[in-house]
């Protein structure tokens, strides 16, 4: 389905570096991040809040609020074309039609004073030559596709008349409307309750296959990643610390941070434990990062080398890991 039948990746991100100018100086939110996404593949981008995953997602569409943010280095190639080299107008045309993004807050992500119909048709007519009527019909069929009952009539509803799950479905319908090759989904189900979450995820998966689109799923929810993603990237403090096939990553994490994340997921069936294991310590201040491994201060396997030398991604038993002393590996 993925890597095997495509000769080249759909998206190739190389050394992406994003900085924000703040009152306390320059903060590097994303530091030399590189990854590929293949056609029709779902990749999870996981990490704690503030690790740079959302900024990475926004950078792919060049939507970093600027000022204060700025992409200072790297390339983002979509089918071989570097998006960073495009002028603003050209990039605008590609947003929505080639690469689209949906967001976490379905409550506020839609414009409250326009009907959802007018918001979907606006996107449709921006990218395709359609009359108002054709666009409306298409919008109705898209809503039906994301299982919104009585879609034709719902077009005239305002966002506040819909539930959170429905709003997120409207967002998905909008994302599908112009058939993008890559969808960046930033915590699309975080604000929804668990049953709605499962429905929305199922729907995304089905539609992804139907529309043959690749998805970058930005989330902090490892359960969602395990369910939906073929591959996962784990981010910590602005860089990728581990990447690999989901199953392998989850069954045998190599990076102590990944292992810590996995251990801190509550489980229903496991025996009761007094306290959930947590990763000790706190994320270092992004304005004042340590010289060596950024996880060193919280790592239980830390050695003196970790404080001096910053590890880079290297392949360890199938996963790519940025750690001097990966877990379970014979060094």
């Amino acid at each position, binding site marked *: 389905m993925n890597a095997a039948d495509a000769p080249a990746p759909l998206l190739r991100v190389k050394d992406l570096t994003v900085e924000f100018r703040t009152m306390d100086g320059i903060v590097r939110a994303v530091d030399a991040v590189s990854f590929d996404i293949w056609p029709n593949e779902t990749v999870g981008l996981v990490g704690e809040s503030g690790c740079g995953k959302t900024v990475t997602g926004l950078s792919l569409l060049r939507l970093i609020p600027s000022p204060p943010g700025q992409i200072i280095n790297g390339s983002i190639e979509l089918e071989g074309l570097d998006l960073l080299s495009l002028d603003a107008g050209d990039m*605008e045309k590609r947003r929505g039609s080639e690469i689209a*993004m949906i*967001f976490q807050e379905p409550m506020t*992500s839609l414009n409250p004073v326009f009907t959802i119909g007018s918001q979907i048709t606006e996107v449709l007519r921006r990218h395709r030559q359609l009359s108002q009527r054709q666009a409306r019909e298409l919008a109705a069929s898209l809503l039906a596709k994301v299982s919104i009952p009585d879609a034709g009539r719902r077009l005239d509803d305002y966002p506040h008349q819909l539930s959170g799950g429905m709003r997120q479905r409207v967002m998905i319908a909008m994302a599908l409307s112009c058939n993008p090759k890559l969808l960046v989904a930033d915590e699309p189900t975080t604000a929804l309750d668990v049953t709605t979450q499962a429905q929305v995820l199922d729907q995304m998966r089905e539609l992804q296959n139907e529309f043959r689109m690749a998805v970058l799923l930005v989330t902090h929810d490892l359960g969602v990643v395990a369910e939906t993603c073929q591959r996962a990237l784990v981010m910590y403090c602005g860089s990728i610390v581990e990447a690999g096939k989901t199953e392998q990553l989850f069954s045998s994490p190599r990076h102590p941070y990944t292992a810590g994340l996995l251990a801190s997921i509550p489980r229903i069936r496991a025996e009761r434990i007094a306290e959930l294991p947590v990763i000790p310590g706190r994320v270092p201040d992004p304005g004042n990062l340590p010289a060596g491994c950024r996880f060193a201060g919280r790592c239980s396997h830390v050695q003196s080398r970790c404080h001096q030398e910053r590890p880079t991604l290297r392949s360890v038993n199938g996963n790519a890991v940025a750690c001097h002393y990966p877990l379970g590996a014979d060094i």
Partner: protein
Amino acid sequence: MQYVLRKMLTGIPLILGVTLVSFALMVYFGPDMTYQLLGKNPTAEQIIEVRHQLGYDQSFIQRYLAYLTELIRLDFGNSSSGEPVRSLLAKTIPVSLILILPGFLLGHILGVLLALAAAFWRGRWADKLIMAIAVIGMSVSFLIVIIAFQILLCSSDGLNLFPVRGWNVQSLPDYLSYIAVPTLATTFVALGYETRFYRSVFVEEMTRDYVRTARAFGLSSRRIFFRSIFKNCLIPIITRVMFSIPQVAIGGSLLIESYFGIPGIGKATYEAIITGDQPVLKAVVSLTAILFVFVMTLNDILYRAVDPRVSLK
């Protein structure tokens, strides 16, 4: 329609409250007109006679009820100069309206347009220029602006293009020449405040999530700004415009009318305050309260028209 009626009904206590307080102030702190009417050497009978005519011998409640009846019939009797209050109002209110309206509209329309430009090009030179002018407009006192414009445009020391005082309007050119300088002065001062306020409204709206969504789907920034954002900003715009109506109607016209010698309601009110002309004051106070209620109702109806989330209940 039902809503409008209900809203108007809830305005009645407000009107009663305002009139009660202002009436109490007039009764207990206002001037006693008896001696002014009678001159220096009145007899005791004359005093009683006049006090009876003025209603001073009645209780407060009786007098207040009499006032309310006047209000309901919109007949406020005669002013102390003997002219019926109603005809005084009919003469002065239209003058004030056509005097104030152009400056009021210009201030808000230009304010919104300049704010749009400043917010759209925020951080660039257009924004900085507009905001610098706005700060100047805000910082200079209204009186100074009036006097400066009068000297520059109406006096032989300046361009001497327009009449500096009076109101002798027979035709449209007359009208334009009389309102030109007052309108310029009010617009100049209003623009500072309005532009700054509206710009902050637009800029804040630009940071909303739905703006990011629209950008993520490739809509052009121009379209997002002038369609999506603008419609969301209509509520604060409407509120500001509506609530400045009563203020402009009272405060704004008072200054302008006295400095330009224009016989409008502001000047009439000012003179009524100075001379203690209670019938006129009563009429003005109660009409202002009614105007407030009316404006608030209109405000709520307009909200409904621009924001589907607002329901009229």
